[in-house]
């Protein structure tokens, strides 16, 4: 036991420089593309900005959720990955970078910010106690502050535990996680409703927050899986992390792939069945001018293909196959966000059909760059295992 702990303290702390360099390149490209796009076509740029924001929130806020989930359920198998998830949750701190341009461009994107339109429209008028500019901004600030606060508390406790190795810290984290869970549920619903659903302020779907959450969880766990595999191959983690751990990560990816389909289908089927114009109008633009193929492809990209990729036991145990599935799920989430946001861009700009070009690529590159650079800055030269956690040894010994 003592040998292994010495071993853990002497683990390599430098993470691959490649993450930083590639991330920096993507970030520079992304920032250049974003700035340029805002000069040329501010409307399209701001819609893509929403996609980028939703991606970064998914990865960052999803990671805070993963940490809290482990604390509250007392999970054992995921303890070796908790510190990586904690470093990943620092990505959430970068969200203002992407949220501020959206808030500055609100009038272009969100129809409900126009006071004359709201006064002329009884539905928007009734919704205005929630959908108004000051409250929107305060909500965003509040979510950012509260989530960051919890993120720092979890991280500080975890770092402190590296020294003290105290069981009390674990208990305190579990207590802390309970209110976090409630706040998280409200927060992520608000993010989804505010930034994505209020693009069509007349439309409402109570399942929308859960829909976004399903994609968020799958994306966060996929990014975590990629980080674990990269750090493992770089020698930052102990060799005891093996197929049994990968299987559990893959199992969650698989579960939330199916969960997303469950939510997406529930939303679609209820609206399709009731067939009420005030609900169906959201799906109509997604069923014409080329979007119908995008919608059918979404079922395959986000559900059928990853379901097949992860169904087999070996596909979850084998790192190289798991890596393919993780990249696929992240890509599918990007596609899903594009599908959620861009039909409204058609409506706002008077174009027809899906648009794709360097602006879309640039904003995805921007969010990928943010994720990689922030992770590198947060994680480099730190412990990558929660070496003080009493459950760590049990987590490392975990097998199916």
């Amino acid at each position: 036991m003592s040998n292994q702990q010495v071993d853990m303290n002497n683990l390599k702390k430098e993470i691959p420089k490649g993450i930083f360099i590639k991330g920096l390149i993507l970030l520079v490209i992304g920032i250049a593309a974003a700035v340029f796009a805002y000069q040329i076509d501010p409307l399209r740029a701001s819609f893509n900005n929403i996609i980028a924001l939703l991606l970064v929130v998914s990865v960052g806020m999803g990671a805070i959720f993963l940490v809290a989930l482990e604390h509250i359920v007392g999970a054992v198998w995921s303890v070796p990955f908790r510190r990586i998830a904690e470093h990943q949750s620092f990505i959430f701190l970068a969200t203002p970078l992407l949220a501020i341009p959206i808030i500055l461009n609100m009038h272009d994107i969100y129809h409900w910010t126009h006071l004359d339109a709201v006064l002329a429209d009884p539905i928007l008028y009734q919704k205005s106690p929630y959908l108004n500019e000051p409250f929107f901004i305060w909500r965003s600030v509040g979510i950012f502050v509260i989530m960051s606060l919890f993120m720092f508390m979890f991280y500080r406790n975890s770092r402190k535990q590296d020294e003290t190795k105290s069981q009390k810290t674990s208990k305190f984290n579990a207590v802390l996680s309970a209110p976090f869970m409630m706040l998280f549920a409200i927060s992520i619903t608000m993010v989804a409703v505010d930034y994505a659903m209020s693009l069509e302020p007349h439309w409402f779907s109570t399942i929308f927050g859960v829909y976004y959450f399903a994609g968020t969880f799958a994306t966060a766990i996929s990014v975590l899986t990629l980080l674990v595999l990269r750090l493992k191959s770089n020698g930052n983690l102990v060799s005891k992390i093996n197929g049994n751990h990968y299987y559990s990560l893959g199992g969650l990816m698989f579960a939330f792939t199916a969960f997303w389909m469950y939510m997406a289908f529930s939303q679609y089927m209820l609206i399709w069945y009731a067939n009420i114009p005030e609900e169906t109008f959201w799906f109509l633009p997604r069923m014409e001018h080329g979007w119908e193929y995008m919608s059918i492809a979404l079922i395959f990209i986000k559900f059928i293909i990853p379901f097949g990729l992860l169904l087999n036991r070996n596909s979850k145990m084998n790192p190289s196959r798991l890596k393919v599935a993780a990249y696929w799920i992240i890509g599918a989430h990007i596609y899903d966000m594009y599908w959620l946001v861009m039909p409204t861009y058609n409506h706002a700009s008077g174009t027809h059909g899906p648009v794709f070009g360097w602006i879309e690529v640039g904003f995805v590159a921007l969010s990928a760059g943010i994720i990689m650079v922030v992770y590198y800055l947060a994680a480099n030269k730190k412990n990558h295992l929660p070496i003080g956690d009493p459950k760590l040894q049990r987590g490392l010994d975990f097998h199916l």
Partner: protein
Amino acid sequence: MSKLYSIAALFDTPNSIMDAAAKVQDAGYENYDVNTPYPVHGMDDQMKLRPSKMGYYTITIGLTFMSLMLFFMYWVYNIDYPQVIGGKPLFPLPAFVPIMFEATVLTGAVLTVAIMIIFYFKFPNNSHPLHDSDYMKAVSSDKFGICIEATDPKFDINAVKDFLKSIGATQIDEIYFDEEEVNHKNKVLEPKFVIGLILIAGFTSLSVYLHMNKLLYIPPFDWMMVQHKVTAQDHSDFFENGISSRQPVEGTVARGFMPYLYVDDIEGASENLQNPYPATAENIELGKRKYLTYCSPCHGDLGKGDSRLKGQFPNGPTIHSDKIVDWTDGRLYHVITEGQNVMPGYKKTVTRKERWSIVNYVRTLQRALDAKVEDMQ
């Protein structure tokens, strides 16, 4: 007739059984099994078991039944009884998905268990050589056991015993079995079992009946019965006449319905009405079907007044008399619609188009029984 089934060895701790399993595997035995009171993690690695193939059966079964269910619903909705429900298309795929999902999950789960019971546990046989042995009693409470079967190619009674002792077994038993007992097939339809099934069915039916017909009518479970809405034919204080249903506006015409303007005016009908349906083969065929259904009982299949009522009821007159041949289409139509003498009107049972088609058919019959020379050419 007792035969040796296996040599069974007991161990005290999960760690020792893990070591023992690895050693038995290394020694080259093939037909052996490990019995533990609870699943010992990592045992399949020690025994070098390949991952179970059961999952492939399950998904194959699930997808098969999913396709069958999809085909069944397609058959019901599109072939057997095509009916538009809720304004949805005849192949409403989203509405099928929940049923397909349920069929997949249900058949996948139930048939997997059934396959296990039938092929692995050899249903309806329920005995196994290890049953009723001290070894089984021990491994199902607090001991861990390995048993090496006599069918193993390397099996040799003394060598196996020595080997098991050498790897630290605390107790070694020889397990014998009675071939007849193990191969005995139990009767599936055991009277007790059948009676049990009948009792369960009776209990289920009774409780469903009581629930649906009694419990739901007792307060407070009857909240669905008391609803603050006015139903048709109900009393309503809102309207002056106290009836919830409203009368249609004067002159309202039902959809697809053409009001008949000559109800008491046979002369007007005979002068003004024209047959709007041409005497096509299709319309005459329709008229023939309706004629045979509604007219032929009195007027006869060919309209000769030779009804099969045979005097039990006043016979309808022939339709081939000069009087009726000379009638206009409008007059014929009026008689069919409103009736004449003892003949009732058919406007309630036969639609407008069908009545005009009957007129066409009657004209055809008249022409057929009074053919002119030029018809023969």
